[in-house]
């Protein structure tokens, strides 16, 4: 389970556009790392290159290395499908599969990878839904479509779906930005629980959220329009919010930033 991530000199491109330059950072296992920074500075881009989702976009590529417990996920001969099975992802907008029931959504990763054993699937389904704090709410309607749940429930369903394949790392791209405050709290609590088992990286626009859930925080910034985004600094969350070493970080945190 939970593995560490080491990113070294990562440069990320969309075709000719250099989106992010020279990111180097480490994420220890069983911790929550938050990415903060202004819109368009490349948080999502960095996050998506941690499980090779970036290259799904035509023309997109990366330079540099991302080590998962020392093994380069961009190494020659590494299967991106295998990487994504180990490093799961939750997206900004809840995206349950519209043709599947709640149960089928949760076990989609296993079932489509070939697991047929009904009993095993049911066990995974219950365990994952409990893990995502959704079991009590949906246990009586597992056969109903996932699209009928509320936004917050759908997002927890997506988290259940992501943890059902038992990844080592969980990436979350602004998982609460489409949710109301109550659902947001539910997900934040969940993140704190999931930390016991997973390495978590979360992008957030909400600095209170970063302060509440994360152990370390990485601040990304842009130096100008059309310039690549950069990692300004990464440090323990308490340090970043009380005593950051970079001026830009302090400006951003205290709201002195455009």
């Amino acid at each position, binding site marked *: 389970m939970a593995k560490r991530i080491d990113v070294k000199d990562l440069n990320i491109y969309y075709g000719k556009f250099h989106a992010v330059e020279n990111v180097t950072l480490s994420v220890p296992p069983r911790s929550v790392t938050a990415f903060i920074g202004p819109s368009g500075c490349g948080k999502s881009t960095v996050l998506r290159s941690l*499980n090779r*989702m970036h290259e*799904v976009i*035509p023309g997109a590529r990366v330079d540099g290395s991302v080590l998962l417990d020392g093994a380069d996920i961009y190494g020659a001969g590494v299967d991106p*499908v*295998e*990487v*994504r*099975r*180990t490093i*799961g*992802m939750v*997206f900004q*907008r809840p*995206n*349950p*599969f*519209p*043709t599947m029931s709640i149960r089928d959504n949760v076990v*989609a*990763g296993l079932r*489509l*990878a070939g697991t047929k054993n009904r009993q095993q699937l049911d066990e995974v389904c219950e365990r994952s839904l409990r893990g995502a704090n959704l079991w009590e709410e949906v246990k009586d309607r597992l056969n*109903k*479509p996932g*699209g*009928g749940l509320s936004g917050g429930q759908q997002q927890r369903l*997506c988290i259940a*779906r*992501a943890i059902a*394949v038992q990844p080592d790392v969980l990436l979350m791209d602004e998982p609460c930005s489409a949710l109301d405050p109550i659902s947001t709290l539910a997900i934040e609590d969940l993140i704190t629980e999931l930390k016991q088992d997973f390495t978590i990286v979360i992008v957030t626009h909400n600095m209170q959220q970063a302060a509440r859930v994360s152990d370390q925080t990485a601040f990304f910034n842009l130096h100008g329009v059309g310039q690549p985004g950069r990692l300004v600094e990464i440090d323990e969350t308490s340090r970043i919010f009380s005593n950051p070493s970079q001026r830009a970080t302090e400006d951003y945190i205290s709201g002195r930033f455009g």
Partner: protein
Amino acid sequence: MSTELELERPAQPPSFQGISTGRKAKNLAATVMVSLCFVVAVIPLVWVLWTVASRGMESLLRADWWSHSLSGVRANEDLGGAYHAIYGTIAQGLVTAVIAVPIGILVGIYLVEYGAGTRFARVTTFTVDILTGVPSIVAALFVYSVWISIFGFSRSAFANCLALLLLMIPMVVRSTEEMLRVVPNELREASYALGIPKWKTIVKVVIPTALSGIVTGVMLGVARIMGETAPALILMAYSARINMDIFEGSMANLPLLMVKEFTNPEAAGFNRTWGAALTLILIIMLFNLAATLVSRLSAVKTK
């Protein structure tokens, strides 16, 4: 006293007013227009259905209609049936659909999921667009000149199917393409992020999401080719006898039966023509029902 009352009154009376006459008039005019258009569109539809049903019903009620051909039946006898033509329509429709649907869907998948943005895909899309507009008579002449004149095969139901394929494949490609394009990318990404390979994502996530639209497209295609007459006239001679072999000899289908019996001045000819028309409508309706069931089973659900 009076000042108190004065104070309780709102400073300004509420400014809500009734709907103005101008808006009422516009609303009425629009409602009348829309309703009129609806009536104008529905009248011919009902009229056609009523005409076909009332004139064709007599034939359909004879048991022989469903079990006998017109072989050896004289033009003025109200005997025999359309079995030969019903068989022909269904056989030709099925053979065409069985070949056209997989090819069309696979091409559509290629264009959207694999070839997106490449030059080859753009050229293919363009070609498909042109082919969708090709008149059936042109497709028939093309098949005649290649399959019959150059390759030397004889006229047969299969030659007719080839022309129908040329008409149906582009329709299936188009509808598949359009339905796949509206499947949100988020669903594909959600699937990739679970470590599901691309082809499985397409088969298990993308296609089921788009299925009801694809099925609708296929059904429109089937309905269209079952009613095609020009290719049948050129590529497959009418036969009043039952012929089960699609590769050999002449075979009937319902449109051809109508063309044939239309020139029969007897009352029996009238009955057969309209009987065939009603039968064709019923068959296409049945196919539609079956397709609706199929797409219901895997449609996007929210309740």
